[in-house]
Structure formats: C-alpha cells, structure tokens
C-alpha cells in the first residue's frame, strides 16, 4: 500500500526512490510493443529476447571495443536485430500458431546457448561488464523513446498497414482474397518487431553495469514474461501490452507484503485477471473500458481503428 500512497502523495520522492523501476517499466513497455506488432498481425512469435540480446550485445561491445557514442551503438544493434529478423523470418514465417512459437523459441535458445554462451567476445556465459552504463540518467531517454514508440504504434495501426495486419490476424485466407500479400505483411511485422526488440535490448543494456546472459534475461523465461505482458494487457489495441507491462513489472512492489509468497500471490493475481477478463485489461474496443464517460470520442462508425 505504501507504494501507492507514496505515488499519489509524494510523486517526487517516489520518482527518486523508484527510478530504476520506472526505467524498467519503460523498457518492458517497448518490448511489449514489439510483441504487440507480431500478435496484432496474428503471429505467435516468442523471438523477442533473441533480438534483444542482439541489440544489447552489439551496443555494449561497440562501446567497450570502439568507444563509439551511445546513439550509434544502439542504432547498430537495431540494424543488426532487423537483419536477423529478416534471416529468421524467411524460414519460420511459413509456420503458424504454436509451431511458430516453438520455432522462435528454438531461435532464442540457439542464440543464447549456442552463440552467446560460447563466444569469447560475449564473455562465454560469465556475462559482460558494461562500465559506461547509466542506470539513473537513462530513465529520461527510456521514457522519451516509449512515447515515440507509442506514437508509431498508434499511427501504424490506423493506416493501410494496420488494416492489413488486422485482416491477416482474423483470417489469412480471407485476407488473401482481398488482395493482401499476406507473407509480405507478416514479414514487415516480424522485422519491425525485431527492430523494436533490438532497440529495447540496447536501451536495457545501457541501464545495467552487467550484461547477464541468463535465461530470465534473454531466454525462454523472458519470452514468457513478454507474452504475459501482451496477454494480460490485451493484444487488440496497442495500449494493451503496455498496460500489461506496467502491471506485471510493478506486481512485486504492489504485493511486497507477501514476502516469501510473492510468486504465489502474483501468480494467483495473473490467473484471476485472465479468468475474469480473458480479452485482457484493455479489451476490444480499445480504451473504451478505461476512458472516462465525459471524454469526447468519435463515433465508432467513423473511426476505422482496426482491432
């Protein structure tokens, strides 16, 4: 309770004492947006941690070895993650549903266990020290990036691209019959998602003095956590996964009185949300559920917001 009391009565102290949490929420929200794009186009891809790893290691290694500026490091990570997205997407995007999920998990694990834990350059499982990290200063950059990402999501889902994605998610065959190049639009979504994940990975690495190649960071555990953001928040509207990321990331603080039983309590909470709101916290109809009644909103007939 203290957590919320402080948030509302003394936001400045809250900000100062929880900066790291806020930064992590921002990072997770960007990753959740990456998940949103693939889910919105009907692809159950769990590849995000792999692309995050690519973004993170690229950026940190460039910093250590070449001392290049941060912006360039992250940009390089983003580009590499995008390229990896193309290479991974070409073979796996023929798969659907749970088969796609398994194939992308295969990519994540092959990258982590096969490459990262074996290459001398990535520290061979011991991780990498990142001396130039800036945990507290990075938060502004993270939140600014999140705003840009949310704006992009909002605009992309409104246009022709978003309409095509929504159609593919609903029924690929029917989308084909409307002249939509299904495999192309799925590829666009997959690569865009990889790019966002790479970006989030680079940002996250900048917040930590140590790049940890563990499972909870770049492995299946992280993939499941990211999927939880989207499922809990609702994947029909771009705000959903971000809300999910906020809730899931904050849960340990909300339930801190549970001490040793904190995992039990958070697990029960997640189950309760899914049972009572299977469409996610932000369900279909976008923000209707959390929008105050007096807020002006356009007639839905006029608003072509897919999803």
């Amino acid at each position, binding site marked *: 309770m203290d957590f919320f009391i402080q948030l509302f009565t003394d936001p400045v102290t809250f900000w100062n004492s929880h900066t790291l949490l806020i930064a992590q929420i921002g990072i997770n929200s960007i990753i959740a947006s990456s998940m949103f794009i693939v889910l919105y186009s009907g692809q159950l891809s769990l590849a995000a941690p792999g692309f995050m790893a690519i973004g993170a290691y690229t950026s940190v290694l460039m910093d250590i070895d070449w001392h290049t500026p941060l912006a360039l490091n992250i940009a390089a990570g983003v580009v590499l993650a995008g390229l990896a997205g193309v290479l991974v997407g070409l073979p796996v995007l023929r798969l659907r549903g749970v088969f796609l999920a398994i194939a992308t998990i295969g990519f994540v694990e092959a990258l982590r266990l096969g490459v990262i834990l074996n290459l001398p350059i990535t520290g061979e499982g011991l991780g990498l020290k990142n001396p130039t990290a800036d945990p507290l200063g990075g938060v502004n950059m993270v939140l600014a990036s999140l705003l840009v990402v949310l704006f*992009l999501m909002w*605009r*992309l889902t*409104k*246009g*022709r*691209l978003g*309409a*095509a994605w*929504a*159609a593919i998610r*609903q*029924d690929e*065959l*029917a*989308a*084909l*019959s*409307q*002249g*939509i*190049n*299904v495999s192309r639009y799925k590829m666009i979504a997959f690569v865009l998602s990889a790019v966002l994940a790479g970006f989030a990975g680079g940002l996250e690495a900048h917040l930590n003095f140590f790049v940890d190649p563990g499972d909870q960071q770049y492995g299946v555990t992280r993939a499941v956590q990211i999927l939880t953001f989207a499922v809990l928040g609702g994947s*029909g509207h771009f705000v959903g996964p971000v809300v999910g990321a906020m809730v899931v990331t904050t849960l340990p603080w909300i339930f801190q009185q549970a001490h040793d039983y904190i995992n039990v309590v958070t697990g029960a909470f997640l189950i309760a949300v899914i049972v009572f709101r299977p469409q996610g916290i932000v369900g*279909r109809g976008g923000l209707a559920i959390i929008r105050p009644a007096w807020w002006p909103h356009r*007639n*839905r*007939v*006029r608003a*072509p917001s*897919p*999803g």
Partner: protein
Amino acid sequence: MLLRLDKIQRHFGGVHAVDGVSLEVEQGSIHGLIGPNGAGKTTLVNVITGYVPFQSGHAWLQSDKLTGLPAHRIAALGISRTFQNIRLFKDLTAMENVLVGMHTRRRDDTLAQLATLPVFRRDERSRLDDARALMETVGLAAKDIGGRPAGTLPYGDQRRLEIARALALRPRLLILDEPAAGMNPSEKQGMRELIERLNDDGLTVLLIDHDMRLVMGVCKRVAVLDFGRKIAEGTPDEVSTDASVIKAYLGTGGDKAVASAPGASAVGEAEPPIEAAADARPAAEPQTAILEVEDLTVSYGAVTAVRGASLRVAAGEVVALIGANGAGKSTILNTLSGLIRPDSGTARFDRLDLTTAKPSAIVRHGLVQVPEGREILARQTVLENLELATWGRRDGADTGQAHAGRASIKAQIEAVMKRFPILSERRALSAGTLSGGEQQMLAIARGLLAKPRLLLLDEPSLGLAPQMVDEVFAAIEEIHREGTTILLVEQNALRALEIADRAYVLETGQIKLSGSGDDLLHNPAVRRAYLGG
C-alpha cells in the same frame, strides 16, 4: 470471354478433385456452377482464385494469365469471391471489413500516417463514403450496423456484408460460393434480386449454389460438375433435363432400376407426365412406431434448418430420408441422436424423449447413428477403432463377471469382422489408409457394436465409386434382414428408394412428399425436389 479455363487438373493424392475442366464465362453474364456434394466445385474456385495450385491446364482473365500467380495477385487482377462458410473478419466492424476490401486500390499511406499528414484524412473520408455506398448497394444500413463487429451481425447480413467486401475490390469477376445457403425463401429471393441487380450494373458473376431454384432462375448458362469433370453445360432448361445431370444428382438405381425411374429417362425421351405427381399417395404410416417425430423445428442461430418435420419409423422397416444438399437431412438425424436440441416439436424413441435425453443415454437405448463422413479415427488401427466403440459398454460388470463380459465383447468384434471380411483382413492397418468404402464399412461396423435397435445411416454412399456403393448397400440390406430397423439419409435418392419400405422427401427443411419407396421411385416430383423446375 472474361474468364477462360482450359483443361484444369487438380489432384489430391489419388483423388481427381478437378479433372480436366474447361469453362468459359462470358463478360456480363451470370454463370452457374452446380454439382452434387464432392463434385469439385469449391476446389475449382480455389484453383481459379489461386488458393491451391493446379497440376496442369491454363486459366486467363481476359488477357491476364492466372496460371501460377499467388492468390493475392489474382485478387488484385480483379477476381473476388465470397466463401461457402462465411469468412468475414469477425472482430472487425462491418465498416472495417469493407475498408479492408479496398486494400489493393488504396495507396500505401504508412509514411503519411507517421507524419499525420492531412492527406490521410481526405482519403479516409472518401473511403468511408465509398464503403457506406457499397453497404447500401448490398442492402445493409451502414448507419445502423457499420460500427458493429461483423461476427455479431445476423446471418443474412453477414452474407451480404461479405459481398460488399468482395465488391470493394472493384472486381471484374465475382465468384459467389453458395451465397444463399441456409437462407429462408424470402431471404433467398432477396439474394436473387441482389445478384440480378449487380449483374445489371455490368458485373460478371460465377454462381455456385445448391439451391436449383436460385441457380436455374438467375443464370443464363449453367455448368455441371460431377467427380471433378464437367458433365454438362447449357441453359438451365437444357441442364435440368440432361440425363447425365439427373443421374449425377439422383444417383443410379442398381440392378432393379426401372425404366420409368427419373434417372433412367434419357434426353429426348418423353418424360413422365407431371400429373403423375398427384399419384404419390402417402403410404400408410405405421400404427405402432418405435420412432415418432412430431412437428420438429431445428435452427442454428438465425438459420432454420428443419421446419415442422414429422415422421415415423416402425420396427423392422427401412425408411429413407432423401433430399438435396442442405435440405435438413443430417440436422434431423443429429437431433434424434441428441447432438442438437430442437426449437420445438417432439421426438420419441420407444418411451425415451430424444429432445432432452443425453446422447450417451440415447445410444444405450439402442438408437445409434453412423455419421456423415464416417468420422473414424484415422490414426488408430481398424481393430482399435472397433475396440474403442465398446469402451462405454460394461457387459457383465454389474454381475461381477467382467471377465466374461470382456470375452463377449471380443466375440462381438469378431462377429462384425466376419460380416465385413475386409475389416478382418485390414485389422492391423490404420483406418486412415482404408478406401472410402472400407471406411464406411468400418463406421457401420462400429455402429453395430453399440447393439442398435434403430440404426441411423447418414450418407453412407457419399463420395464412393459405383461398385463400392453396391457393396455398402448390400451390407445395409443384410443388416436389415437380420432385424435392425434403419433410417437412411441419402443423396443417392434412387438407390435409397430401392431398398426403402417407405421414404420421406425433404426440401428446404420441410417434408414435401412421403410414400412407399416404389411409388416415389417413379415420381417426377422427386427430381424436382433435387433439380428445381
């Protein structure tokens, strides 16, 4: 010619789904495509629209070659379609569905979107006006339903919305796959008017439907498919009197085929006078029946499949229930088995109320259905399929003689295998490798293991080659001789009428005729129930 197909071939494994079909659709016409179940109509449409590749042949849309193009390119060239089982984007609003249809003629606005340029708003406004106009064209009020998720619209509106979405593509050719399926007569009339109106505006339509009244009424030319081949083409009048078409729809009689049976009358031969229809005196319904159905009405959501059907089956009879596709035959059987609950009416088997009893209780009572399409477990062996059929049986369990019970079940399995020797030969093979006829035998054998007093057979001859049909029907007759009462649903009407004591003719959910098998065999009204006219 707008659409030209030249010797299109499509095989699935050994099955010739489309076998050398050539077809020409004239610009501005409404062209019908009909054929019995499994004739290859939908496969042909899937081939034209690029969903499934074809092995050989050529296809052109005017001067554009369709051969080898992916589906989205073919759509962009101007072939748009609706689906047999509606495929709207269910969670998108009605309006959004139509907007998606404009994909190919909408410029890529991603960058304009990101920059939130005003050009987007202007384009969007014109698109919305366009979509609204399309919805009005197909008879939907955009104002009222435009904002509703497509999946929540009434059935008839969904059909219309799918057409609006297809029109949004501005197609040169519109393919309608069973647009009137499941509609009531007035909705069908509305659909017919819509198709004619679209055609008057210059749209070419390829229409597939089982409702002969619709197809024959609206089309200028009709092509008929059977077993993947085009067996006839011509005006509706020519086609509906064509001997091979009648044969394809009504089936062929076996050795007992009578010269005056509708399937036997060749082209040019004098048809039996229509007045003969009046001769169909209803055969005396049995006084004591084990199955009594009164005034049964069944619907799926907004679609009424069976309207006030009444029928009776007495012990020891073979009763046939015949009618065209979509007439409601299977719905009646599924209702009797307790799989569907009726809206109104009664159905009793002995003293058991079939409208409320659990399906498992109905089976235990001795009413057993062999479902359409066999529904065998393809990956299990033949023997496992039969053993699983006895799973729920507890012979001897209550008297403490479980061992003897198991032995008796084993003996029963051997007994049905003796009746269908082919199953004994194939007992260790997985059921999916059996031929269609053998699978049907297996399905019937499985039904027999439930010890039926009344056996419901749903389309036992579906998709079978003629010799196989003979074998299946011989087996049915033998089962009947051994004392099992049978209610038989068949598309192959002549064949069913031959072995039936009595029969009911079902048309759009209503029982239109009933009588003894022999009477109906000679009744031209039966042909009309299938082919319209």
